[in-house]
C-alpha cells in the first residue's frame, strides 16, 4: 500500500519538477564531460606514463593476485584469481565512487559557494570518472580472460546492463553521502569505515554458496551482493543471471538513485550557507 502511494506521489506530484531538473542537468552535460576529463587526465598529467596508468594499475593488481593465489596460497575455488578480479574491479568502482565522491561537494566548496550550477553535476562527474576507470580496467580483465582457460561466452552481452545498474546504485549512494557530508563532516570518514566492513559483506573473496544459508540470505540485503554475483555469473560461471536477479538489480538501481537524489535535492538548498 505504502509503495503504491509512494509511486503515485512520484508519478504525479514531483514528476514535472524532476523532469525540469533532469533537463537542467542535461544542459550542463559539457560540464560533466570536462570535469570527468579533468579528473581522468589531471591525475596522471605529471607522470611519465600518463593515462597508461589507468590500465597498468589493474594489470599489476591481477598479476599480483594471480601470483599469490596460485603459488603461495592455492585456493579451493578453481581459477580463483579470475573469480577474485571479476568481483574486485566492480567493487573498486563502487568503493572509490563512494569513498571519494562523498567529499566532492565539500572539496569543491569554492565553486559551490560562488557559481550557480546544478550541484548534482559534481557528484555525477566524480562517479562517472570512476566508472570510466572501471571500463578501462575491464579491458585488462578481458585480456586475462582470453589467456585463462575460462575464455568468454555470449553471456558477456548482458554485462553492459549490469554495469549500468551498478552505476545507478553507486550514484544513489554517493549523492546521499555527499549531501550529508556537507552538514556532518565526519561522514567522509564514516563512509571509509563503512566500506571496510562492506567489502566483507559482499561475496568477493569467498563464494556465497559456501556460507551458512541464513547468513547468505542476510547478505542479499546488501545491494552489492547481487551486483557482484551478477558479474560472477556472467564472467566466471558463464550463465545467465536469473530473471529475479536482474529485476531486483533494476529496481535497486531505480530506488537507490531516486532516494539518494531526492535527499540530495532536499538538502541542496542550503549548501552555499553551510560550506
Amino acid at each position: 500500500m505504502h509503495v503504491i502511494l509512494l509511486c503515485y506521489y512520484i508519478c504525479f506530484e514531483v514528476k514535472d519538477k524532476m523532469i525540469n531538473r533532469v533537463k537542467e542537468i542535461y544542459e550542463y552535460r559539457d560540464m560533466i564531460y570536462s570535469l570527468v576529463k579533468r579528473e581522468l587526465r589531471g591525475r596522471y598529467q605529471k607522470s611519465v606514463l600518463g593515462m597508461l596508468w589507468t590500465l597498468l594499475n589493474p594489470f599489476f593488481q591481477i598479476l599480483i593476485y594471480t601470483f599469490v593465489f596460485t603459488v603461495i596460497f592455492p585456493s579451493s575455488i578453481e581459477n580463483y584469481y579470475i573469480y577474485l578480479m571479476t568481483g574486485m574491479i566492480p567493487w573498486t568502482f563502487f568503493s572509490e565512487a563512494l569513498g571519494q565522491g562523498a567529499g566532492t561537494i565539500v572539496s569543491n566548496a569554492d565553486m559551490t559557494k560562488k557559481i550557480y550550477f546544478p550541484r548534482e553535476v559534481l557528484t555525477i562527474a566524480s562517479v562517472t570518472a570512476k566508472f570510466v576507470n572501471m571500463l578501462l580496467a575491464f579491458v585488462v580483465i578481458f585480456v586475462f580472460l582470453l589467456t585463462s582457460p575460462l575464455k568468454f561466452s555470449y553471456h558477456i552481452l548482458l554485462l553492459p546492463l549490469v554495469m549500468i545498474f551498478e552505476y545507478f546504485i553507486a550514484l544513489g549512494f554517493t549523492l546521499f553521502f555527499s549531501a550529508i557530508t556537507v552538514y556532518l563532516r565526519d561522514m567522509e570518514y564514516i563512509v571509509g569505515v563503512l566500506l571496510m566492513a562492506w567489502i566483507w559483506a559482499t561475496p568477493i573473496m569467498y563464494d556465497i554458496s559456501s556460507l551458512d544459508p541464513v547468513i547468505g540470505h542476510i547478505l542479499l540485503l546488501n545491494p552489492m551482493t547481487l551486483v557482484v554475483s551478477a558479474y560472477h555469473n556472467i564472467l566466471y560461471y558463464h550463465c545467465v543471471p536469473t530473471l529475479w536477479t536482474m529485476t531486483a538489480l533494476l529496481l535497486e538501481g531505480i530506488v537507490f538513485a531516486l532516494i539518494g537524489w531526492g535527499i540530495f535535492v532536499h538538502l541542496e538548498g542550503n549548501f552555499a550557507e553551510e560550506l
Partner: protein
Amino acid sequence: MKPGNAIEVRNVKKYFKVYVDKGHMLRERIVHFNRNRYENREVLKGISFEVKKGESVGLIGRNGCGKSTTLKLLTRILRPNGGTIEMDGRVCSLIELGAGFHPDMSGRENIYINASIFGIKAKEVDERINDIIRFSELEEFIDNPVRTYSSGMYMRLAFSVAINVDADILLIDEILAVGDNAFQTKCFNKLKSMKDQGTTIVIVSHALGQVEKLCDRAIWIEDGLIRKDGPARLVCKEYLDKMESSRLERAELEYRMHLDEEKQRKAAEEEARKREKEEAERRRKENDRQKREAERRQKEERRRNIEEKKRKEEEERRKKQEEEALQKRKEEERRRNASCRAVAVQCSPDARREGMGKIFFTEVKMLDHLGKEQTKYNIGDEMTVSMKYFSEIPGTSANFVIGINRNDWIYCYGTSLQHEGGNFLVTKKEGYISVTIKKLNLLQGKYSLEVRIQNIEKIPYDYLISLIDFEVRSDEKKETGILTMPYEWRTNDTQIKIGKIK
C-alpha cells in the same frame, strides 16, 4: 513580470544562521547538543527593485551591508527566505574567477573546463576560443600548464573566459581589479561595449569611479535596506559624503580611545619595569639553549638557500619569456595606434581602433566653417567631419555613424547616415563622405569624436574610438549641463531687461 524588465526583485529577505558555538564534527554535535543554538541574523530586511533591459546598475554600500548577498541571490546560489526574484534572459555571473582550473592542464584545456562550469557549451567555446585567448594576451603560453603562470597571467586568463560569455544579464562582484592598469582599462572598455550592445549589468563595487562611469543607476544598500536608488552620479556622491562624515566620527572615537589607553599604558609600564629585573635572570639561562638552536638553524638555512636559488632561476626564465611577449604586444599596440594616427592628423593619444576590416577609414578630419582643420570651437560654430574610406568589397552597403562623447564618458550626440537618408550607402572602392553640424549646440567642455562604419547588423567594419579630442569654448558661462537650447525668460509677459544687480 513587466515587459522590458530584465530583473524584478520584490521584498526579498534573507537570514543567516549565526551559530553561537558551531561544531561540524560529530563529537561536538553530540557533546554540545544543547548548546548548538544559533541566532538568525537579518542580512536583507526586504528590498525591492527592478532593472530594465539594457540598464546597468551598481550596488554600493559599506562592508557587510548585504550587497554581495543580493548578488548571490540573483545568481541563485542562495535562496531568499522571503519575497521573489524574477529574471528574464540568460544570466552569467562573474563572481568567482578561475573556477575549476587544474594546475597541471594547459591554459587552453582550462578555458573549456572553466567555461563549462558557467554553463557554456563546448561548441560555443570552440567559436570564441580565439577571442578569449587574444583578450587574455597569453598567445605564447596558452599551451603551457597553468601552474607555470604568474598570478597575473592566471587572473587574466580567468577573466577573459568570464567576460567573453554571451549573456543577457551579467552579474559582477568586485573583480575589475585584475592585472595591470592596461588590462583593467581593457576589461572596463569591454564591459562598456557589452553595455552598449544591450547587456543588462549589475555590478557590486567599492570603486565608485567605475560605478559612476559604467552605470546609469546606483542602488545604495545600508543595513539590509535600500537607502537610495537613483542616477549613479547623485547616489555615489551622497554615499561618499556620508562615508566621509562617518569616517570622521570614527576617527574621533578612536582618538579618544587612544588617549585612555595611553593612561593605562603608563601605569602598566611602571609595573613592567619591576618584572623586568626578575626576567633578566631567567633570560641568561635561556641564552645557552638558544645558542644550540642557532647552530641547527644555520644548517637548515644553507639548505634552503640552495633551493631558493633554483627557484629564482626558474622564475627568471619565465620572466624573460613574459617580457618578450610584452614587447610583442607593445609593438602590436603601437602599430594599431599608428594606424589611428595615419587616419587622422588630429588623432588623440587615447585613440583605439576596432572592427572586422574590409571597409576602413583612410582619412578623418574635423573642419571649421572655413574648411580648416580645427579642434577648438565656440558654441554655435559650424563643424564638419570629413571622412575618406577604402572598401575591399565595393558594392556592399554600409552605414556611417559619428558620435560625440564628453571626456567623462557621457555620450552626448550621435547621428548616422541611415537615419538621415533612410538608406545605406553602397560603397565604391574609394569614396568621400562628410557630415556638417550646422550649429554646435554643445556647452563648453572637452569632447571626443568617434566614427564608425558598420554593416546592416550594426557590426562595425571599422570603429575609431576617441579618435579626435576637441574643445568647445565659450566666453561666458551662462548655462549648465550638456547642451545649449534657445531660451527666453519672461515675467508679466514682458521680456526681462538684463541689467546689473543692484
